[in-house]
């Protein structure tokens, strides 16, 4: 096989081929295409073979978008199907390493260009395929055999896209099913510290960042690219509470990154030590003591919550990186998580959602509760919410009966339900070195009836 007539190396990664340098555009927004990496049997893979279905590089119509597919198969005793996604992502880099070849995006959104210079130099798919296989084998010993097929013929590309999409779907289903228990590391994100200096987001497979932008997979990719960046690997360490989601490693890093302000975090509980809230969370989960349930309101919802206040007011109280029992900034995606405040009863504790969110996540919510969650159409205040939940027989109603006798005897238990009525509040205002002389007294949605308030100087 002839040596590829262009350079191959990391320096070409991220090389952008501009329109007037481009010979041909493969796949991309003006055409179609896909890429796929599969682990196959040792008997199927023909090591080193490059197949081209359709016109080769030199015959590609100049300046026109061409449908494009790349299918790589690899065999090796230790290769696992689980790694296909990781290898497929490497294709992006390796194709980019080839001088004069641009590769963007992934899967069925790939967008490639081949430069005029590369075509002039005589590059063919045989060259490109061989170079990519070579890069794979150099980096991964586990790959023993490989072959590559390029598709540029319209119908063949269509068939290939179909085939690829079926694989993506299967793969996504597996990834979505990933649990916090399945991994040893989580990721911490401090991108928002310019706004909330004490805030660190903990990102686990079952808890996407509060802004909804950074998944566990983003974290994994980011620390590889930039180990000193704003995303930090967290070794889970000792599991302190598997239900609440408390981990020694998370606590340690949170304490460090929050400058000592926060030293315990429960990933999946709104009580005790809930996750801190940056300021730019997509939604807020809030505990409603009157019905002993949890509501969620998102940023785009313009109406008011059953508390009588809109998202914006609540966000102003919740944000800034503080830890506030009964409130947590979350990504709307977290509603879908099987661990959604699981320590507090999970989705069965969810009593109120804006209609838009309820519709979006309807199929992801458990059947036992999804028709019983109130929206702004059912309740805009606490009395209506209570009446609605009672009428539809929401699972939280059974909690009311359990708690009722206890509540008569004494104030509700502190850990599970923050006190709604307290006979007397004494706030020790001294001995707070962090405040540095300033005093912060915050009442959140509190209803306090006092006959007298006495503030004394000691």
């Amino acid at each position, binding site marked *: 096989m002839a040596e590829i007539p262009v350079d191959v190396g990391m320096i070409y990664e*991220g*090389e*952008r081929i*501009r*329109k*007037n340098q481009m010979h041909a555009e493969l796949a991309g*927004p003006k055409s179609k295409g896909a890429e796929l990496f599969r682990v196959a049997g040792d008997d199927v893979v023909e090591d080193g073979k490059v197949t081209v279905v359709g016109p080769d590089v030199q015959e590609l119509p100049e300046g026109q978008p061409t449908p494009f597919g790349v299918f790589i198969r690899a065999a090796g005793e230790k290769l696992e199907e689980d790694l296909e*996604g990781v290898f497929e*992502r490497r294709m*992006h880099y390796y194709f980019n390493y080839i001088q004069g070849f641009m590769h*963007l*995006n*992934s*899967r069925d*959104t790939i*967008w490639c260009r081949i430069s005029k210079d590369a075509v002039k130099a005589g590059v063919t798919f045989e060259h490109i395929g061989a170079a990519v296989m070579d890069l794979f084998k150099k980096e991964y010993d586990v790959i023993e055999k490989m072959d590559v097929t390029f598709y540029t013929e319209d119908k063949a590309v269509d068939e290939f896209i179909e085939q690829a999409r079926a694989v*993506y779907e299967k*793969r*996504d289903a597996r*990834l*979505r099913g*990933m649990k916090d228990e399945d991994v040893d590391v989580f990721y911490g*994100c401090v*991108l*928002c510290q*310019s*706004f909330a200096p004490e805030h660190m987001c903990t990102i686990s497979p079952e808890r996407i*960042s*509060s*802004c*909804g*932008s*950074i*998944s566990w*997979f*983003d974290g994994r*990719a*980011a620390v590889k*690219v930039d180990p000193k960046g*704003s995303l930090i690997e967290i070794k889970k360490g000792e599991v302190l509470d598997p239900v609440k989601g408390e981990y020694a490693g998370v606590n340690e890093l949170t304490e460090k990154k929050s400058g000592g302000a926060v030293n315990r975090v429960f990933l999946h509980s709104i009580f005790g030590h809930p996750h801190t809230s*940056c*300021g*730019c*969370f*997509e939604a807020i989960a809030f505990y409603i003591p009157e019905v002993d349930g949890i509501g969620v309101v998102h*940023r785009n919802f313009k109406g008011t919550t059953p508390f009588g206040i809109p998202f914006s007011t609540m966000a102003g109280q919740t944000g800034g990186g503080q830890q506030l029992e009964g409130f947590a900034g979350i990504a709307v*995606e977290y509603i879908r998580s099987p661990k959604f405040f699981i320590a507090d009863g999970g989705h069965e504790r969810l009593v109120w959602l804006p209609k838009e969110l309820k519709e*979006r996540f309807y199929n992801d919510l458990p059947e036992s509760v999804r028709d019983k969650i109130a929206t702004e159409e059912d309740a805009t205040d606490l009395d209506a919410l209570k009446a609605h939940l009672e009428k539809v027989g929401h699972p939280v109603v059974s909690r009311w009966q359990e708690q009722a006798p206890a509540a008569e005897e004494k104030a509700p238990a502190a850990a599970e339900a923050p006190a709604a009525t307290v006979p007397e509040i004494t706030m020790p205002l001294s001995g707070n070195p962090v405040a540095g002389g300033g005093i912060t007294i915050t009442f959140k949605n509190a209803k306090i009836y006092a006959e007298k308030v006495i503030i004394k100087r000691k």
Partner: protein
Amino acid sequence: MIIAVSGKGGVGKTMLAALLVRTFSEDTSNLLAIDADPDSNLPEAVGVKVEKTIGDVREEILESRSRSPGSTLHDVLEGHVMDTIEETDRFDLLEMGRPEGAGCYCAVNHVLRAIIDRWAKDYDIVIIDTEAGLEHLSRRTTQDVDVMIVVTDSSKRGIETAKRIKVLASELDISFKELYVVVNRAADDMAEGIKKTLEEAGLKVLGTIPEDRNVLEFDYEGRPLTELPEDSPALQEVRRIKERLSAATGT
């Protein structure tokens, strides 16, 4: 070389940026123009119609929930940014577009900056029409600017602003290799005096662009400034500015 054109609103920032695009793109088509001022209209001034802005991409990303669990924000955004770049035969153009809404843009902006920074390196020349004022520079689109050009008119206020910029720039921790001032709409007999005042304040004056009737007419008719006739005084002075810049930076 990355050139940022700044200055307060209405001083002719976009005109200078557009004419720099015209003159530099005569030497190389490997030029990227970035419109970072949501209130200006660099695309019109250089005669390009923009389909999509980075602002649109930002909103799309925050709205869309279709991202597959394995794909990263960077992967997804790279293609979107590419899609935003208008590619003409003479140069490329990227419009930053509308300012941010209420959502969280920390993560998205972080990644966008990384992508744009990386791609800016592949161009021979990048010309940025920045937002009016200077505060934006701490969250600018490009990390390292080689040349910062401050445009000012000949008013006392404009000149005072230019003088203050040097101080402001150091306070805002903006890194650039050179800072120059360009005076716009200077009357012929006043140009020397203004230049002297600025130089006495320790500022390097790269040129003084005279009032140009062609510019007024083109603006009035909405015609691209890049099509100004060769004998336009403004264009002629920008040619000299370009030569001085090239000589000073060795490009």
